[in-house]
């Protein structure tokens, strides 16, 4: 009898401990990773902006600005994504390569896909929840919304075209012509992938955007592109 009581008590304490650890893990995943990632990403943005120079900075003429980008090493931040629908202060670094480490530090660019403004598909992935959740509200993007990708040489402006929800193995969404693998691209696309549904990873929410224009940094970004679209909540 004494042993039975001891056993029940020990089991109870173990279960309580396990539940405490689970709650602690939830707190870390859902709250703390946002705190640290948001802070780290703000630092990256600051560094990038400093490296890019203020808007209107005359850039040395380069024959092929994209050539510089194709040499970006894995893990390095090389662009800033701005989405007025998510607020005028929304600025997230874009890093080269989509491993889990890069995804905690901002938006991750699929290696091997086009770079901003290039003909083909500039494909990126971002967290829907946790780690700063850059694509938390990806489902609020509407066709016609502006997305600005700022690089050292250009402001690359895209507008949202459409979205699809697919299973995680549908790599066709990041093909040079989205959803049509093997087809030769004639225009520049932007593809954003994120978790779907929120807090799950069973599907991917994918947004396609088309290039509008690429503006040399020296000319600056017209303010109209950063206007928050009507109907934005929050």
């Amino acid at each position, binding site marked *: 009898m004494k042993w039975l009581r001891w056993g029940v008590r*020990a089991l109870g*304490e*173990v279960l309580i*401990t396990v539940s405490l*650890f689970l709650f*602690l*893990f939830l707190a*870390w*995943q859902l709250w*703390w*990773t946002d705190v640290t990632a948001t802070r780290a990403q703000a630092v990256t943005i600051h560094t990038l902006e400093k490296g890019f120079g203020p808007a209107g900075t005359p850039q040395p003429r380069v024959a092929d600005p994209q050539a510089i980008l*194709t*040499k970006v*090493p*894995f893990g390095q931040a090389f662009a800033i994504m701005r989405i007025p629908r998510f607020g005028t202060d929304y600025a997230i670094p874009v890093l*080269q*390569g*989509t*491993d*889990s480490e890069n*995804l905690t530090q901002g938006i*991750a660019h*699929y*290696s*091997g*896909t086009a770079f901003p403004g290039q003909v083909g598909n500039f494909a990126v*992935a*971002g*967290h*829907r*929840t*946790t780690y700063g959740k850059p*694509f938390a509200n990806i489902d609020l993007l509407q066709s016609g919304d502006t997305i600005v990708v700022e690089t050292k040489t250009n402001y690359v402006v895209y507008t949202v075209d459409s979205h699809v929800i*697919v299973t*995680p*193995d*549908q*790599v066709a*969404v*990041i*093909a040079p012509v989205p959803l049509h*693998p093997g087809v030769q691209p004639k225009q520049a696309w932007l593809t954003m*992938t*994120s*978790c779907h549904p929120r*807090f*799950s*990873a069973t599907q*991917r929410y*994918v947004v396609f955007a088309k290039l509008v224009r690429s503006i040399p940094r020296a000319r600056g970004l017209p303010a109209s592109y950063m206007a928050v679209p009507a109907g934005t909540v929050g």
Partner: protein
Amino acid sequence: MYGALWRLMPGPWPVKLLLSLVLVILVVVVCFLWLFPAIAPYMPFNGNSVQSGLPFPGPVTSVI
């Protein structure tokens, strides 16, 4: 387990309480800084990229 821990700690109860608090904080710090970041990639809800490994080469790990 918790009873034994309490009995093991030295001093009167305020000291024991303080020691317990320190222990709890220590556990939280170890979890937040090392344990959780290490196990997070294995959690089933953290995926957001598409992959099959076929059409695209793996990550470019070297500087060109």
